[in-house]
């Protein structure tokens, strides 16, 4: 059987360019030799359809559908792929964070209210400075908590936090 060889028209770097406009370090993805070591050693690949080698290939081919796939949400961010990759500067966990970011922006990511665990943790972090129900030892001084709130302005963590408040109000009604 004749092997299909990619032609130049199979590759479109617009998507890749968009991603590196956001995170420049992902420029190094172009060095990928598609050896598959990342996927062979990946815990998420063992239990889901997550396949980092294919994700890199799809990004380099300009396949934006990767943002709709649930696969990118299965990454363990364990950084094993980064360690075993024969190339020096390819950072797949950073690419996944990059893709998840784009996915969120386009409204394909998980809904904030679905991130129940994060709603609780975000609320605690923005009110106590810790993800715990009760702080370890002395609580964080109030002005320090204010600093964290200021740092997190306009971040998704705030929307997650707000989503919890809206849900609470609805439940009270």
């Amino acid at each position: 059987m004749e092997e299909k060889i990619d032609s130049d028209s199979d590759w479109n770097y617009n998507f890749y360019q968009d991603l590196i406009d956001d995170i420049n370090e992902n420029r190094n993805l172009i060095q990928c030799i598609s050896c598959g070591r990342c996927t062979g050693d990946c815990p998420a690949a063992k239990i889901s359809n997550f396949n980092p080698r294919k994700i890199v290939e799809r990004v380099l081919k300009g396949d934006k559908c990767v943002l709709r796939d649930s696969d990118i949400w299965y990454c363990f961010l364990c950084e094993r792929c980064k360690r075993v990759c024969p190339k020096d500067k390819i950072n797949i966990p950073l690419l996944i964070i990059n893709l998840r970011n784009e996915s969120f922006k386009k409204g394909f990511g998980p809904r904030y209210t679905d991130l129940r665990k994060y709603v609780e943790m975000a609320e605690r972090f923005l009110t106590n400075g810790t993800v715990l129900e009760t702080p370890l030892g002395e609580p964080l001084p109030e002005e320090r908590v204010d600093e964290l709130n200021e740092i997190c302005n306009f971040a998704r963590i705030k929307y997650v936090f707000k989503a919890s408040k809206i849900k609470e109000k609805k439940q009270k009604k």
Partner: protein
Amino acid sequence: MDLDNLAMDLEEINHVYKENPLDYFKNKKLCLFKACLEKFFPGVRWGIEDLLLALELDVTTCKSQSCCSGTFFQRNLITRAQFAAINERNLNEIDHQADILLFPCNGCYNSLLRGRDILKDEGVREKTQEILKGLESKAIGESYPGKYKILNNPKLRLIHDLDFLFLIKDEVVKSLKYDLKSLKVAVHYGCHYLNLARDKKNAIDYVKNKNKLEDLVTLFGGLPVDYKEKESCCGWGASQIVLHPKEALKITLNKLKSAENVGADFLLTPCPTCLYTLSKPEYIEKIKKYFGEKIEIPTIHLNELIAILRGCEEERCITLRRKTPRLEEIYDIITRDS
């Protein structure tokens, strides 16, 4: 701006203080980073704190430290600049009061190193500085020079508890009351220790640091055992265990089963997140429900093990709530007078 890695140069300490690396830490101020999961495992903090005090070192915690926020960064709930700003805020506060920051958790250690690494990107650095400047202009809280700036060439150095304990291993061994009585130990480093960014162009650097837990186990009188899933993830996977429990627990099961299959008495880890995943009764129950496998092998944090070996009160080493008959048995074997 010097944005060099803040990780402590272990080789230099070993070289300069070859007689006794503990001397490097004397007359220095040490601070213990508060990891959120210490709440469930108080022995993780207490184990190291009590040892440091026994070694007459100056040790504190920082009351202005917040959580490392790694979990929010990993779920894209904060930006890279916000993550870096939270880190810089913590580093500034701790640099103000200490020379050395010790980490009992792979996640926190990785977060602070990564936060610093992210700042190498000029765009992120500018945004981070802008965020910190915003805090200054709002004059929130007590200020001191440099508080709202990215730390430039700070004195503060970061070290993981495992690296620290390995560095002063002779002193640790001297402080022990019991030994491991040839118990078989399966070590689990945890991804964020094992896969920390390494210099791939330096072959020695790339392969080093993988035997510290095994070496400590041997020094403590135990037998480190090799097992197939030694380098695999515990299953936590940046909250995958919460989001996709059935899939993630398969990874946990593989790990625990693999250690049981080679006859290990317990797993030893330097990370409370891995400890949480590998030992939470709810997860062990779910494994039984999903896969029909009964797992009994317990997991112990390195700091807890040192507390047990030093003969500290049982209650302070291992919390009652996670006690299992197997853990109880191991505790009894270790603390039995030989």
